């Protein structure tokens, strides 16, 4: 269908695109800008802010914490989530849609409420806050996403191939690792990457459950509270680059068959 309302719609659409893109453009410009005041005009380009950041020990501490947390969250939520997604395909239509609705609750709940809920819970149980509590907390909201993504793929899965494998004498586990997993593999990897992108970017829940130490977002928050400093742009750009590249990668995997 052709939409004749041409120029007005076109200009407004372009305006929305500019609105969506401008923060990233500005962030990138200032991360490499020579001036230290974050203002136009930009007089020259430099890598000094990155150099200064890379000399900071706390940055590397936050970086390695983020790496450990994101990696663990990816593995735990993907393994548990894929198992549950398989179980979900066996649920009746009513139970199934009720369960899928229940999975949305941790996703819809404001992260602040989830964060304070887990914080008071851990403190009451006397569990020491550290990277483990952050990992457990992240899995609460990443696992439902993995389940929903993998379930959507399994719904379109052709059961006949499994039956053939079983008829030919494969054990259920053999059938899973040699038939099912190679077919749904790309989606599972994509779902793992989505979980990791959400984990690496999370600030609110991490803030409440980490105790001491930093991840990249809480490190950025600490810098913001200390006042303006051009290295902030460098951290922000690194964090943004990590989330965007993981997201783009995950899209490629999930689109693979859909």
């Amino acid at each position: 269908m052709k939409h004749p309302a041409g120029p007005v719609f076109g200009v407004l659409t372009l305006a929305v695109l500019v609105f969506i893109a401008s923060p990233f453009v500005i962030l990138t410009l200032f991360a490499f800008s020579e001036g230290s005041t974050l203002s136009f005009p930009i007089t020259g380009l430099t890598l000094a802010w990155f150099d200064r950041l890379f000399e900071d020990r706390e940055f590397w501490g936050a970086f390695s914490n983020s790496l450990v947390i994101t990696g663990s969250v990816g593995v735990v939520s993907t393994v548990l989530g894929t198992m549950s997604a398989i179980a979900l395909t066996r649920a009746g239509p009513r139970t199934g849609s009720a369960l899928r609705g229940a999975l949305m609750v941790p996703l819809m709940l404001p992260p602040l409420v989830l964060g304070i809920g887990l914080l008071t819970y851990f403190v009451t149980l006397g569990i020491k806050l550290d990277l483990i509590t952050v990992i457990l907390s992240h899995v609460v909201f990443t696992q439902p996403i993995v389940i929903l993504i993998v379930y959507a793929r399994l719904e379109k899965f052709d059961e006949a191939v499994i039956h053939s494998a079983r008829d030919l004498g494969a054990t259920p586990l053999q059938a899973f690792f040699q038939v099912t997993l190679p077919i749904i593999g790309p989606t599972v990897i994509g779902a793992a990457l989505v979980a990791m992108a959400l984990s690496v970017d999370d600030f609110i829940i991490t803030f409440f459950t980490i105790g001491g130490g930093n991840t990249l977002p809480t490190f950025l928050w600490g810098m913001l509270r200390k006042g303006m400093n051009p290295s902030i742009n460098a951290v922000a750009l690194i964090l943004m680059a990590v989330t965007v590249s993981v997201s783009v990668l995950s899209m490629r995997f999930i689109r693979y068959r859909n």
Partner: protein
Amino acid sequence: MALALRRPAHTALAAPSAVFFLVFFVAPALHLLLTSFWQMRSYKLAHDFTLENYIEVFTGYWDSILVTFGMAIVIALTTTAVAFFFAYSARFVVPRWGNLMLALVMFTLFGGYLTKIYAWKTILGPSGAINSALIATGAIEQPIDMFLYSPVAVVVALTHYLLPLSILPLYGSLRSIGDQSVEAACDLGARRWRSFFDIILPQCRTGLVVSFTLAFLFTVGDYVTPRLVGGPVTSMMGVFIQNQFGSRFNPPLGAAMSFSIIALSALVIGFAVLLLTRIARPR
């Protein structure tokens, strides 16, 4: 069915997740609910049942609750409207560019929360991108302070953050509307706005509800955006809730605040869904 096991074996597969959700989601939520009925006495938690926290929330913080819900309604409506416009444009106006537009949106779908808000702080600030650009071109002489630290800054930053999350479900709804049904309406003599209200809008109901609900709940529970770009005028509940677990140290009050805003949000969202169902009903 992917494992070809009998039913009990399948149910067992979900056991680890089920235990995890009970221990780390259901139990903490119930514990927080219980906490909201307890009290702090000389920096210690007293486990006696009282409604005082809730009374304090509604007597001492009603003005902040109003500000929070006002902001949430404005942001949820703005986000949904802009997202709908963008998704509509990608689907019907410039369908050739639709996939590319969506790809750009998806890039930041799963992240960039703190970075985006920080970016808006630098853009809107007194020496930020907008002001310095305006000064450099000679449009103004003094920087305009009111961009940053105002409710408007919160609306801009949060709308920007929530847009991708809203565009996705709306584009999904719009893509499932076939060209034929719209063309058929036109052939039968329906005017464009008529086919828009009778065919397109009703089919987007789910997308609109998801978008509004997500944006509303996120705003109600947010404290980072008001603290970074909202300034002291924008006293939103999230900031008060966070304080009860920081400097003010009163978890029971913070818990009562959380459950109050969630209950009130459920009311507002329920009402909004009802209203939307009426507006977007095929006539």
